[in-house]
């Protein structure tokens, strides 16, 4: 007698009806299904009632939130099924003290196994197709797209509006106008994420990645870096300001005026102010780690640059180009990048030193 015959013989001995622990129940399966459906409905109700997402700030947000709701509706019954069988089994089939018996030698059931291969297969295939359709939908090219270049660097974002030939420190977008972000990085990998838009794309050295979005709600939304990019990673935040179209146009005009005004000021030579130091402070990444009230910087990786005390220009210059030369007490060496002497031009460095010296006020 081989294994298989022995198994069949043993299984023939114990059909479920003879199990005294469930023999008294009329329809154990029907009851379980009843409990399961009831629990699933409650579970679905609770999970849909929870306010999971941040507010919806773009047209794609609603589609992604709906997709998540569908995923919840499919998931809850699966979890409830597993829990119901597990809890029911533990309650009903728990060994009495001193019970040395065994369960019936059931080795399998082909029909049941086919069912639990087929149904999950159909479910995940359907969800994958739905996900694919949604993906194509939210990434589809839109008419009248405005291109905005996004550049990540340790630890700040800068933005360019190529159609307006404008560089900006902040991200301002007109409401209801489709935007294509073209994302780059100057150093390591960053990730550009606005939770309210539900979009995200890494900024990858050597590549320009693209993300499409149509903001449909006015407000200030945080731009968050989500790819670990070094020390100031958790402070690499900025705001995306979504404004009405006319306000956007006047903002563009203001920015252009400021840019050209700065250029004439420098060319005129009257004040010889040179490059805009506050702009350098942000674009070089200082604001990613340091606090400076004048520049609106609040990061706490490095010392507060508005409270350096009694220092001279030489000290500030040395601290920028050779940060390890004199490390402020309470801070560690090798944390600040040591390549600013290559990154900044002489004029930029001079302007920055002057700006920081004045900031000590």
């Amino acid at each position, binding site marked *: 007698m081989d294994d298989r015959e022995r198994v069949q013989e043993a299984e023939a001995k*114990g059909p*479920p009806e003879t199990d005294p622990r469930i023999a008294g129940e009329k329809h154990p399966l029907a009851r379980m299904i009843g409990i399961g459906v009831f629990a699933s409905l409650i579970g679905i109700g609770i999970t849909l009632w*929870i306010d999971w*997402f941040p507010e919806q700030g773009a047209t794609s947000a609603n589609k992604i939130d709906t*997709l*998540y709701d569908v995923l919840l509706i499919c*998931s809850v019954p*699966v*979890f409830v099924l*597993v829990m119901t*069988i*597990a809890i029911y*089994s*533990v309650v009903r*089939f*728990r*060994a009495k003290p001193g019970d040395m*018996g*065994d*369960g*019936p*030698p059931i*080795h*399998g*059931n082909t029909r*049941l*196994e086919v069912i*639990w*291969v087929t149904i999950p*297969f159909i479910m995940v*295939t359907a*969800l*994958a197709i739905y*996900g694919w359709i949604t*993906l194509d939908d*939210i990434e589809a090219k839109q008419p009248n797209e405005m291109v905005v270049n996004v550049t990540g660097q340790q630890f700040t974002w800068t933005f360019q509006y190529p159609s307006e030939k404008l560089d900006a420190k902040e991200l301002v977008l007109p409401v209801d106008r489709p935007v294509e972000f073209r994302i780059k990085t100057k*150093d*390591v990998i960053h*990730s550009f994420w606005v*939770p309210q838009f539900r979009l*995200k*794309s*890494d900024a*990858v*050295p*050597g*590549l320009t990645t693209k993300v499409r979005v149509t903001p449909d709600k006015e407000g200030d939304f*945080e731009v*968050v870096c*989500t*790819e*670990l*990019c*070094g*020390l100031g*990673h*958790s402070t690499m935040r900025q705001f995306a300001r979504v404004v009405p179209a006319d306000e956007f146009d006047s903002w563009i005009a203001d920015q252009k005026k400021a840019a050209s005004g700065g250029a004439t000021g420098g060319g005129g030579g009257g004040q010889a102010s040179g490059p805009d130091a506050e702009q350098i402070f942000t674009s070089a990444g200082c604001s990613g780690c340091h606090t400076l009230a004048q520049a609106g910087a609040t990061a706490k*990786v490095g010392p507060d640059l508005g409270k350096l005390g009694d220092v001279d220009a030489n000290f500030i210059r040395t601290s920028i180009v050779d940060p390890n030369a004199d490390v402020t007490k309470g801070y560690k060496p*090798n*944390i600040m990048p040591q390549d600013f002497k290559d990154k900044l031009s002489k004029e930029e460095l001079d302007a920055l030193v002057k700006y920081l010296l004045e900031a000590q006020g």
Partner: protein
Amino acid sequence: MTFAQRLIAPGWYRAFLGMALGFALGTAIVVVIRSLYGWDPVWDWDAIITVGALIAAPFGYLIGIGCFDYWFRWASGAPTLPEDHSGHGAYSWRDYFRVNTDHKVIGIQYICTTFFFFVCGGLMAMLMRAELAQPGTQFVDPNTFNGLFSVHASLMIFLFIIPVFAGIANYVIPLMIGAPDMAFPRLNALSFWMLPIAGVMMLCSYFAEGGAFATGWTAYAPLSTDTPLGQQFFTLGVQFAGASSIATALNFLVTIITMRAPGMTFWRMPLLVWANFTTSLLVVIATPFIAGSQFFVLLDRTLQTHFFDTGQGGDVLMYQHVFWFYSHPAVYIMMLPGFGIISEVISTHARKPVFGYRMMAFSLVAIVILGFTVWAHHMFVSGMQAWVRIPMMITTMLIAVPTGIKIFSWLATLWRGVIHLRTPMLFALGFITMFTLGGISGIMLAVVPFDIHVSDTYFIVAHIHYVLFGGSVFTIFAGIYHWFPKMTGRMYDEGLGRLHFWLSFFFFNLTFGPMHFVGIDGMPRRVADYADQFATWNAIISISAFIFGASFLIFLYNMIASWRYGPAAPGNPWRANSIEWQVSSPPPVFNFDEVPTVVAGPYEYGMPDVVHAVFKDREPARQGAVATPAGGGGAPPPVDER
């Protein structure tokens, strides 16, 4: 022994001498080369630490402690020292600190070492939760914080979950298949002794200039090619952990293929053996890829190659592809052995055959194959070719099918069983529910549009802890409690075991459950500071995490006290069928006084006349037999009773 003799004999004295000589040799190589080429400075400490401390000294230690003695003698033509087996077995705690070729001793060595690193990684998690308890910076600066989560993850993955499974399997697999030992006992010892190198290296990175490696366990280039020296401690530590893992996997494959007892066909192997067979396939195929990815980083850092320098034709996405080609299968390396443990535990403690045994084995094989086709689902927002996301989404979701087969089969095994709710069974049930949740959030993450939103947020942190803690670590606890009597010859305290389960189950969920909420709501991962809106949940998470961490102390106390003072365990306390339970607890030094013959499947509960294996001269279960010491520190000294 005189001091000079101790320095020559294999052991710790020679190991420290070897480390010193290795470091001196590495230093000499660096200094000589640099002075020959006239490079300035000649004493470049970064290079000296890399070559001397991170490469040469570990080899000096391995040679010193005695891993290579037999092979060196053989290779040089000197007479080898024949194994007189005096090195087998462990009779006092000191024996665990020596190179030993007994698989049972090595198993215990693995488990204790990995739990040490588990405690280290756990303490780092506690520090992180202290920092994250409220917004702003309180305890650690951002550099230290980045180091904490990087070392935490690396220790948990490379020094705990992966090797602790190797440890449990090391102890149990040869016994389960009726073999006297592993196929290559000396290689087995070498595998173990490479492991502490990796762990100590990662811990020591805190002392490197610039702090511990702070680029996450993923070490994405070009951040990792551009950070202080600590990164090299990771890059090289992974090599030792990986080499250890590959050698053990080869050992398991050969052992399982060639050393099964008569009658033990593949279809009569316990599912834990199947699980380790498939895991070992994954390890030998995939692990070389992470070794490769880290060598690229090392070369970029030390020899100024340009693998990841885009200005010079490098490709940073290549790093991620190679890395995840290992690290996704690694998720299954960390899960399949747990599946095996759960099959053993559920069938034994529910007194029923595993439902659909062959489908359970086939689904393991299916996971191995599908597991190699999904790596880029970690890269949906990485900027790779857009179309790759679709096939990766589909294959990722398809893995739910074989995983579902396993979950449903365990449930069907419970159905109409006679369920004994002992601690291993509680952890198995906890595993099923938590892993189902982790699997569900995995399916959600596979759907690209949703993943775009939550990628690199706390939702990922929640998911990974549900599959790796609620999944893998719960199976590890189940396995440790289940085989504790076999390994130590003592019974653990059931009450403390249950308390440990309920505390960790409840506070696990309170710790990691809310992370789903804050993740979807916009909190990125790997941040030392966060927006005020997440403060409430983070405070709750931190408090819960502290209690969750403290619950582990109960486990630790239970294990140590029971190992020393627990009541003696009979050979087969769970009345299990598989072969390891048919010998004494702990088993004899050479496992079997006579070779068992396997006559039926491993889970024939409910059929009193069917046994899994027979021994020629005695009844299958030799309960109450006097234990011969092996692998059990608390066991009596060797006495010949026969």
